[in-house]
């Protein structure tokens, strides 16, 4: 088979897919890194944001890329309220229970979407959806190139935010030492909710960048959840540069495994990496101390 000739375009495609994984994982790594919880509702929130972007486009003609500036803040607020109003009180601040609450939330959100919007597949047709950048060796669809650049920008911005702002420092303090942070007067509940809000806003941004080349159904989030967790673990939880590089690496690994093992068996590549990283370097590529 003439597979060598397609390795280059495949790897490039893997990088652009990986950028989407990174975007979804940026939000998750914030939540996972600080709250130390498995947020089961992450995929459902992605799905919700995809619907939001879809309706903004079809009802009001707002382009998904412009919708970033509407949905980012809106989903930040949603995440903040969910954490403050539902997840915190229902979980009593216990890790294992947060997991169950987010599971409950995801059941509610998924089926709300099903009841409200049916399970019909929805897509948007945009004039630039089939524009490509011709690199001679490969054709890169324009929306994927945009997502790639946006992932770099988002990771950079979040990194700056965590490193340079007071809230960013507070978040890192809570992530490292919850009790200590509390003792020096940091409002832990507020920090948690800010984190969840930011994580949810990241998911909304990811949704806006994904919609031009993908589809929405009430189940669409499930396709990204496990990959997002893998990305977070690979990059090291709480690490923005880790999520970015982790996502890109996984995109390429997935592509290469698919290329040489077939798409079905090739899925195993991601999980094999996941298991190996967990066993041999649970702090991830860029992680700090292990939990």
């Amino acid at each position, binding site marked *: *088979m003439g597979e060598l000739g397609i390795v280059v375009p495949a790897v490039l495609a893997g990088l652009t897919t990986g950028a989407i994984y990174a975007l979804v994982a940026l939000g998750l790594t914030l939540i996972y890194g600080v709250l130390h919880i498995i947020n089961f509702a992450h995929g459902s929130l992605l799905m919700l944001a995809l619907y939001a972007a879809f309706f903004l486009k079809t009802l009001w003609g707002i382009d998904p890329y412009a919708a970033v500036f509407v949905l980012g803040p809106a989903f930040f607020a949603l995440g903040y309220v969910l954490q403050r109003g539902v997840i915190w009180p229902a979980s009593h601040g216990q890790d294992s229970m947060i997991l169950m609450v987010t599971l409950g939330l995801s059941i509610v959100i998924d089926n709300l979407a099903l009841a409200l919007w049916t*399970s*019909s*597949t929805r897509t948007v047709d945009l004039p630039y959806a089939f524009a490509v950048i011709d690199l001679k060796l490969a054709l890169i669809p324009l929306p994927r190139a945009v997502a790639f650049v946006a992932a770099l920008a988002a990771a950079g911005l979040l990194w700056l935010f965590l490193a340079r702002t007071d809230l960013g420092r507070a978040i890192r303090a809570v992530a490292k030492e919850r009790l200590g942070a509390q003792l020096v007067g940091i409002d832990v509940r507020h920090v948690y909710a800010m984190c969840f809000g930011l994580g949810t806003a990241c998911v909304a941004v990811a949704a806006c960048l994904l919609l031009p080349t993908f589809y929405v159904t009430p189940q669409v989030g499930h*396709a990204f959840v496990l990959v997002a967790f893998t990305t977070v673990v690979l990059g090291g939880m709480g690490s923005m540069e880790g999520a970015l590089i982790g996502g890109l690496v996984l995109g390429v690994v997935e592509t290469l495994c698919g290329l040489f093992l077939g798409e079905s068996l090739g899925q195993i590549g991601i999980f094999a990496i996941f298991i190996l990283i967990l066993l041999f370097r649970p702090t991830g590529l860029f992680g700090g101390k292990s939990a």
Partner: protein
Amino acid sequence: MSKRPLATRRHVLAAGTAAAALMGFPALLGAQARTVKIGVLHPVTGGLSYSGIQGRHGAQIAIDEINAAGGLKGLGGAKIEPVLADAPSGPAGVAEVAKLNEAGVVAIQGPFASGIALPTTQEAARFGIPFLVDVGVVDQIVQRGLTNTFRFGPGFGKITGGALDNLAAINDAAGKPAKTVFLVHEDGAFGGGMAKLMATELPKRGFEVVGTEAHPTPHRDFTNIVLKIKSANPDLVIPSNYLNEFVLFARTLRQQRVNPKAVYAVLGGGASNIKFVKEHNADAQHIMDVNHWFDPRKPQSQAFQRAVEAKGVDLTYEVMLNHACMHVLAEAIDRAGSTDRAKVTAALAASTFDRHIMPYGPTKFVNGQNEGAQAVNTQIVGQRIEVIFPRAFASAQPVFPVPPKS
């Protein structure tokens, strides 16, 4: 486990059934003049919910027609009352069948997916409930000797055979421009089975298979597969998968500028979906599909199409098959003149019903399989899904090879 308690259980069960017959049946007989209950079982939540809900719509449209036309005449104008049930998975479906049994359904139709049909038909057999399978293309469904299980639509053996015959005919008529084929299929029961059959059948008809790629459902990215197709440069691409993957696949083909002589889907999820045609008209152009499809010329078809439009439902094969299935069931119950399950089963087995919207001719069940069932070839031309085979009721000539895209 010892044998004795089992015997006792069986005894108790028998006693229970007798008691139910004594107490429940008169109630059923009393209610007979007013309504006849039919179980409508589909996966309306979870991953298969689109198809399941579509199927439910089809059954409901048929029931509305039957009731509006005076109900079941053989039962004094009794109206059909659907008992709706959700079967997102096998175990859930089995539990629902027992509930349908207790709700007193005369028959069940559904449940779209083969993996759900296998255990649910078996469960229905325990209660002697006739079960009319709507889609479920896996052939084992009707090969287990279950006398209650009937399948109205064709199985994948039949679909594939017909698909390849028609493909050869189309190719011959155009002067045999296509010689090489690339198969793309989902890795589940139907896609996997289909691909295996085609890999052995295609060479017999003079085609060379230059590549086969399976993918999971859901699948996030088709770039790899499309790149492989690009490098193999086949004349034909044959996909067999579900709607979402089909849409992604078709769009990736266009993104990567791959233009085979034809995309000839066999049960391609999106290729016979009018929504796909409307929303992605450029990607959809000239895609051919072998799928369950109705005969638009039949007298029943006009009313059906109007009802589908009035309900705002997508026109898809799930709706069509379930609409037809409900009419088949209603006619059998009508002819049996009874709500007795055994009599309805016998009436179904003897059915020659043909006043449904599918292009099947008279119904004829052999070991539960409707021998008249066949898939048809469609092609997307402009804003429409045209039937191109069988020629007897084709609405258009096949466009093959397809004109190159701009």
